[in-house]
């Protein structure tokens, strides 16, 4: 577990442009990419009460983010800043094949 004392929390937000929303394929790509980072990463649909572990595909699917919704991402840990940048890029570029 990462202690908040050892690092800053980085945040980002990005619009989900994928035509059918956060369905199986985008969710798999997002969690795969998140797992490449040490940082603890959470996501939520903008304004949702709960933050969700970005490394859990079951929870990402359960989030049911629709096309056009805004995804907020926060991360803490040594590579948190890079994680935010990579995840924002993945969503913004519509989950290209080969990514994640």
């Amino acid at each position: 577990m990462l202690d908040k004392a050892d690092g800053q929390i980085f945040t980002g937000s990005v619009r989900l442009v994928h035509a059918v929303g956060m369905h199986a394929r985008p969710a798999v790509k997002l969690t795969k990419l998140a797992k490449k980072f040490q940082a603890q990463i959470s996501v939520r649909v903008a304004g949702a009460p709960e933050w969700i572990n970005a490394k859990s595909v079951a929870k990402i699917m359960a989030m049911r983010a629709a096309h056009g919704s805004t995804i907020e991402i926060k991360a803490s840990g040594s590579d948190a800043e890079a994680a935010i940048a990579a995840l924002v890029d993945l969503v913004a570029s519509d989950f290209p094949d080969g990514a994640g």
Partner: protein
Amino acid sequence: MQGSAAGLAYRGRTASIGFAHGPLVRVDAGAGGERVAGTLVEEALALRKAIDLASGQIADLAASAGGEAAQILEFQVALLEDEDLIEAIFASIGEGRPADVAWRATLDEQIAAYNSAEDEYLQARSSDLADLRDRVVHILRGDAGEPLKIPSGGVVCADDLPPSRFLEIDWSGGGGLALLHGSPTSHVAMLARARGIPMVVQLGAIPDAGATALLDGEGATLELDPSAEQVRIFEKRRESHRKSRASARAILRRPTASWRGEHIKLLINIQRVDDLDHADAQYADGIGLMRTEFLLSRRSELPDEETQFQAYDSVLRWAGQRPVTIRTFDAGGDKPVPGFTFDGEANPFLGVRGLRLCLARPEIFTVQLRALARAAVRGNLKVMFPMVTSADELEAGRKLFADIVQRLQADGIAAKLPELGIMVEVPAAALAIASFKASFFSIGSNDLAQYVLACDRSNGALAPLMDPLHPAVLELIARTAEHGRRAGISVSLCGDMAGDPRCLPALLNCGLRELSVNASALAQIKQTIDRLSSGGSVG
């Protein structure tokens, strides 16, 4: 009644077209035997081993199947690697539950959540989870690894069939899939379509008997122990399907349809962006009608400019140089939208709907026009207004649109006014067609027929009167086409008539040279035009 099913026919829903005639093979989920649970540590180890084994099996299946199937299976692998999900199951084992019970309970919870989703896509994902659940349970019970033995050409009958089981079956000898439940949007249905395996879903209950089956994926029927006569008729249908499909697909690849030496433009209607995934969509000459109401149904709030722009832009990118005609919101009538349409109208079909509604709700219409103005610089965009009665309405819409373009440009945002046209669906518009300064006309034959014939198209009791080939309807279509021809304005037709082969001779004789149909009808319509052109009948 000793379980005889001879000659009986059952009807379901089409998931994949095609025909199969072969032995009926029942596949049960397999209740299996009970297993004897060990100590907490043994149970945790058993589950860990089962998960690893399942993961390996799925990875092997994905590697041999490749393509779309591999992507579908990747979701299952990701679930097995989901620590949040798996840890909860180990915690439950730690509380004393046997491995299979703990695993099943957690997966069942997930499945129930997917089943309760409103989105049909998410509902269909529940069969992926059931697939994974059963695979691990089978391994835990020690009855793993026995692949389904399906005789070549067999008709597989199951309650539902998970994608991995589908992939384990050797389909090289043909065969078909008959599901008592299931869904046409499931992963297994996508796989069946990709492989050309006929598949019928939602057959309901069928008797627990039958040795031979005829499966007709087109008519969505399953016939058990057929008589010689049933087989003869079935084989005839299969043969004519094979011939027409082969020639229709060959015709589809030809550049343009033509009739008596004139090019007939064939475009497609789409309801949402995903409709472009249809395999035949690529052969269209463009998009004749993109409906935008799907944007209104997704959420409780109305879609913002960016969401709309992204949707329009993705369609324009798909189309490249080809024209894309987007229809502004056609809400009202039988399509009420909370927060947009007016409640309590006594007769909504004759009420504030289509362009009338948009002009009455400029705050909503403006957002759509801004998104369209920005999209117009990205491709060959045309915009049309629905439910237009008088030329003043078109001009009011145009003025609003032009002001928006000007404001965007003043702010340094790339935008332009696209070509503007109208739907011809109000009889008054068809009769006074020359009064509209439109760049194009698109005849909405469904509403036009409803208004001309004074028949509510949702009222089944009026079906015999609701004839789109009524001379009055054809007269209005012919007048509109004739005006277009003289004034050099393109006229297309995008209603159900365009996709109905029986209506084609009349439409061509009315002077129409542009038709817009659903992608699934494209091959048949192109083929029908070809037949008519060479002097044949509708077929």
